[in-house]
């Protein structure tokens, strides 16, 4: 009844090419934005922000990034954790002032504002991603997936050993100093919950809109052509080098930003092996698969699902039934694993496909013929 194109006349090309052509979709989208920006910051507290909202926002960015690479361009990557680490360490260096040693003399850049640090961290990660994306021109499919593990393990090792990267701190950890935007702290111990939330939300919103439009444009079409069949794409004039490397670059840019936010805003202090290990790579890949490959909405849905599930299970099992925490933890990974398999069997195209089916039904509702 409400969800239909009929009667919604487009009179200009701009109207016709807009992101949400259906009116109901558009209003829903505005409503979500209003709630996210104008309502949520006033009602949330520390617990909600730290256990649900921040992880959701940050993982959503990472999931969109990986979705661009895996879902749109078809290059399976297991190096997400490593690229997130690059983002985190680059952000840390920019935040605290990059020091360069030339001929025994130290030159230091002044610390850069946290907002720009995060963006610069994304750019650095994009270059690292392109470097590790180079083999994708020769290696395909699972061979590539395993090859990206090289990035994962090598980068984690690098940030463990390379003292410059953690400013020679004795513990080998990186700690986010207090930094702010417009005089409001967004990192460090004195951060208000709403400030951290808004900071991440701004990034997520901009990046999601960017991703949506990139994937609708010529670049996205090239990626999808490569995904569907790379030789055929090459024959119709898609440059595989450019398409694959741009996918790696854009994807790593997103993942780098996610890593930077994960460390600076969410964790505050990070040890590379623990925060950005191989399990992170799998977690983000799960989000992409559960949410739906090749869908920006799917990345949100997958991130929400996998962030909420453990919180929910913990609340039910530990607080509700009073089981010991180790038992609950085991049961939790069992249920996560079981759910993923169930999901793949019932809906291999993820939550996004479920949403698409609902939309198709809604178009005809309440007269299904």
């Amino acid at each position: 009844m409400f969800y239909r194109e009929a009667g919604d006349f487009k009179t200009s090309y701009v109207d016709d090419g807009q992101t949400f052509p259906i009116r109901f979709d558009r209003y829903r989208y505005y409503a979500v934005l209003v709630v996210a920006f104008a309502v949520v910051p006033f009602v949330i507290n520390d617990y909600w922000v730290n256990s649900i909202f921040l992880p959701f926002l940050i993982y959503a960015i990472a999931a969109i990034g990986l979705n661009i690479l895996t879902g749109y361009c078809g290059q399976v990557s297991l190096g997400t954790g490593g690229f997130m680490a690059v983002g985190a360490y680059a952000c840390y260096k920019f935040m605290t002032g990059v020091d360069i040693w030339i001929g025994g003399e130290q030159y230091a850049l002044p610390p850069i504002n946290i907002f720009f640090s995060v963006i610069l961290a994304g750019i650095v990660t994009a270059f690292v991603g392109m470097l590790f994306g180079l083999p994708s021109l020769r290696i395909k499919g699972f061979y590539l997936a395993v090859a990206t593990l090289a990035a994962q393990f090598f980068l984690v090792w690098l940030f463990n050993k390379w003292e410059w990267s953690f400013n020679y701190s004795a513990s080998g950890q990186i700690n986010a100093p207090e930094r702010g935007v417009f005089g409001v702290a967004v990192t460090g111990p004195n951060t208000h919950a709403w400030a951290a939330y808004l900071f991440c939300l701004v990034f997520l919103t901009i990046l999601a809109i960017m991703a949506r439009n990139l994937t609708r444009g010529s670049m996205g079409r090239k990626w999808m052509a490569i995904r569907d069949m790379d030789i055929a794409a090459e024959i119709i004039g898609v440059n595989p080098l450019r398409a694959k490397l741009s996918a790696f670059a854009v994807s790593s840019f997103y993942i780098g930003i996610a890593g930077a936010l994960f460390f600076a805003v969410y964790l505050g202090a990070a040890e590379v092996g623990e925060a950005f290990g191989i399990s992170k790579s799998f977690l983000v890949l799960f989000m992409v698969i559960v949410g739906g490959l090749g869908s920006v909405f799917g990345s949100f849905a997958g991130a929400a699902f996998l962030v909420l599930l453990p919180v929910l299970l913990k609340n039910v099992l530990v607080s509700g039934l009073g089981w010991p925490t180790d038992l609950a933890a085991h049961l939790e990974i069992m249920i996560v694993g079981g759910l993923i398999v169930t999901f793949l069997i019932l809906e291999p195209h993820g939550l996004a496909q479920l949403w698409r089916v609902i939309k198709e039904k809604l178009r005809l509702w309440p007269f299904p013929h």
Partner: protein
Amino acid sequence: MPDQLIFAIEVFLNGLMAGVLYALVALGFVLIYKASGIFNYAQGVLALFAALTLVGIMEGQVPFSHLINAVFGTEIHNFGFHVPALLAIALTMVVMVVLAWLVNTLIFRHLVNQEPIILFMATIGLAYFLEGFGDIMWGADIKKLDVGLPQGINGFIDQITLDALGYGFFIDNLDLVATAVAALLVTALVIFAQYTRQGRAMRAVADDHQAALSVGISLNFIWVMVWSLAGFVALVAGIMWGTKSGVQFSLSLIALKALPVLMLGGFTSIPGAIVGGLIIGVGEKMFEFLIGPLVGGATENWFAYVLALLFLVFRPQGLFGEKIIERV
């Protein structure tokens, strides 16, 4: 001979032994990939699960005791008897066959014709599930596994090298046993695949599902059989690794070490898994020995992957993989 060279030879030999252990895990991967096109990430967890079950049966542990105690407030842990190693291994094998049947019936039968990435994700889901299941069933503490395999330094080699070179090589007995077992296993698998009815059926399925189906081969039976075989290989790998470093969670991570081995050898080749394992084992030990000290050590974490990556750039199908022919 200079000391450095002697050390290098010892490192080389130990690398070979470590490589055999990697190859053992890689074998299970190859088996399943060949027969069903599934890239089975759960192989490492399968090894962990097999080892946990073996220890549990040998010690007479009550399965799910932790869970039962938590729910009903009881205090049960052991049945109070011990099962001899051989019988326990046989029982564990039964469990692995049941598991293979369950995995096939509940998961992969429903995923026929899906894209490889979906199948891969399903095995990761399976890995998570089994990891939690194994821990709940048998408890998460580190266990000692002793099925009577010889362990410790091999006195004979030590003595011979001491006499000849003035320095006794340290070669673990267990590694020697593992080498022998791996050789035996590969021979048995090759004979099975080449000369038995079921083995030929397995190769037919690997070649073309539909053609195999049309000449009357039961896909279900073959798949259950392949998963059981993979379970058997996992059990052998679990026994070796479990005896070496205790049965614990990190056992499941050896699956990750087996991946570069597979890439080097090619996903579809059994000899490839062995040769790849040896190259990786020797390569990472030698690199750690020669270059490691210069860059701060712990290079074993990533060397295998980078080596495999560089190798693949020049030969994308691995050493023994089938040549990749691409058509539009």
